[in-house]
């Protein structure tokens, strides 16, 4: 049977090759976009909220500051004991040094892997509030942002969406690259009055160009947090001998919960006897004048020393001091500059991602990028609805000959390697398309797939 759709092959000319590449990348940009849009919107909204975590939590904690003091402050050890009594069978996990002398103490107690923050009045020792840590507003926002409230599976989906979003930015820039444009309109400035098709196309393309660097920055700095890429990153560091001794970012809530449960489970009634008390560490930590917020952790299964940690948002101001459990003297101190250079780079990336690296401007840039991403998503949706014909998905029509050049093939391979979930997804999609979807005429027609190559 002659296949009339496969003409005699002659080497394609350079413009033909470019047109083919454009069409191919456009199709990928379209299909990936359909998947990414809802996640981009969700991550942009939750991310914008989380950018203001310090301000929002300061506002939420306002009622527990500047309290009426009815006498001298009770010793920290008494505050901790009262908090432990509040949750039956709990262990002391950490104490946050109050920022002001009239602020409530925040004691973190843990039981069965679940942490609760207990707010204790420093003089009357009254329990002002007790809330599970994961139920705080910003913790919920963060859990949605990082794992869609779906645990490790959710984290995987977020990582997949983020990986495809990187592809979207790169393919998008290729698509945007001006070829026939005259002047800046449609390139750097949107044409607002040339009809609705041009309007939405320009809003999408021009916003995309302006936002591309910041969007890519957010996507790349978020990778260390992911389960697959993050673990791969750790593995590579172990193999190359550049591993960190300890990390101060975690990959999943599940892992955090399990670690907490293991580490603190033997505390409580069987606590070994130490000479230094939480009162002493608190006094020393206060005198050390670390950047707020400062927390103190008792010795536990992972660490034989008391730790005083500054959890400053900009990461650069962070300092960790270890105190001996025997006599409370300072054993070691690690500042940001003492960390491995890779950890410093990741730390700065995280701080910038969270909008805490250089003050309100950082937060503003984050919000603007998020707004840009939402604009991209909405304009993409509008373009799709305006252009999609009745009854089909509306993908740009396929090229009959689906050959991929060596250069592009190599690029795809590198991307698939660098972003493993993307690589796995590509393989899965290629298999599904070749073996199933393009062989069933109705799905092929609806999805806009090419005819399968006949053997």
């Amino acid at each position, binding site marked *: 049977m002659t296949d009339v759709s496969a003409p005699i092959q002659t080497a394609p000319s350079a413009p033909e090759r470019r047109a083919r590449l454009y069409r191919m990348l456009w199709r990928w940009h379209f299909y990936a976009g359909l998947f990414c849009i809802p996640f981009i919107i969700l991550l942009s909204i939750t991310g914008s909220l989380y950018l203001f975590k310090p301000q929002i939590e*300061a506002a939420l904690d306002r009622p527990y500051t500047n309290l009426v003091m009815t006498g001298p402050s009770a010793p920290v050890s008494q505050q901790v004991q009262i908090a432990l009594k509040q949750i039956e069978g709990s262990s002391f996990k950490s104490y946050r040094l109050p920022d002001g*002398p009239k602020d409530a103490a925040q004691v973190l107690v843990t039981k069965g892997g679940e942490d609760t923050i207990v707010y204790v009045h420093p003089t009357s020792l009254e329990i002002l509030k007790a809330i599970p840590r994961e139920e705080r507003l910003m913790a919920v926002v963060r859990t949605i942002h990082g794992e869609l409230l779906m645990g490790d599976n959710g984290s995987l989906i977020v990582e997949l969406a983020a990986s495809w979003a990187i592809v979207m930015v790169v393919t998008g820039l290729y698509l945007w690259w001006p070829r026939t444009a005259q002047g800046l309109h449609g390139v750097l400035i949107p044409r607002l009055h040339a009809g609705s098709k041009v309007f939405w196309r320009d809003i999408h393309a021009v916003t995309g160009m302006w936002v591309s660097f910041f969007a890519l920055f957010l996507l790349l700095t978020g990778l260390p947090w992911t389960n697959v890429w993050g673990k791969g990153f750790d593995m590579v560091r172990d193999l190359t001998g550049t591993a960190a001794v300890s990390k101060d970012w975690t990959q999943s809530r599940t892992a955090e919960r399990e670690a907490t449960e293991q580490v603190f489970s033997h505390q409580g009634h069987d606590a070994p006897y130490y*000479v230094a008390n939480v*009162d*002493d560490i608190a006094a020393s930590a206060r*005198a050390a004048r670390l950047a707020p917020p*400062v927390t103190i952790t008792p010795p536990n299964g992972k660490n034989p020393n008391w730790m005083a940690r500054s959890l400053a948002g900009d990461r650069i101001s962070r300092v960790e001091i270890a105190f*001996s459990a025997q*006599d409370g003297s300072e054993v070691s101190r690690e500042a940001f500059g003492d960390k491995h250079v890779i950890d410093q780079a990741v730390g700065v990336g995280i701080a910038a991602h969270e909008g805490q690296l250089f003050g*309100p401007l950082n937060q503003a840039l984050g919000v603007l990028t998020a707004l840009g991403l939402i604009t991209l998503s909405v304009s993409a949706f509008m373009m799709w609805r305006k252009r999609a014909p009745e009854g089909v998905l509306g993908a740009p029509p396929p090229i009959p000959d689906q050959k991929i050049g060596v250069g592009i093939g190599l690029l795809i391979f590198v991307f698939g390697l660098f972003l493993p979930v993307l690589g796995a997804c590509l393989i899965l999609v290629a298999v599904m398309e070749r073996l199933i979807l393009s062989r069933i005429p109705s799905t092929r027609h609806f999805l806009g797939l090419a005819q399968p190559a006949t053997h």
Partner: protein
Amino acid sequence: MTFSIRALPLFFIAFTGLAACEPAMTPPAPMLAVAKIDGMEISEPRLRLPPNGRDVTAGYLTLTNSSDKAQKLVGASSPKAERVELHAHLKGADGMAQMRQVEQVEIPAKGTAVLAPGGLHLMVFGIKDPLKPGDSFPVELTFAGNRKVGFAMPVVENPSQKTEGDMGHGGHPH
């Protein structure tokens, strides 16, 4: 486009509103002072419960000096104890840390001195009445120039059932 331009002022208002709820930027402040004298503040006092059956124990506190001159703590006493001495763990000739009585504790100008285990502390001898956690123990500190200030030290649990000088090398070399 018009929608987003009109919404811009709203964003600015929301932004500045949130920026007004600024989180703390300065290091956590010292706890509320129990006593003040001449620019010196005494905070976080605590007396460790004497180990079983003994009448000797250690007390700790934080001294914050906000004045421009260094101050000196030269003595302490309590109506409920025989005597109170200033002690420090100092390295002896053999390199081992030993507890020694010191004549004074200097608090630098605009500085802090922390009395804590393994370092400076008040050694309280001859406690007259049995104590339990939560009790209030009256103490009077004497600073250079015969300036005295009195306050109450809360008694706290002593998880180790030991006291300063028990661990390691020798006891009180008196």
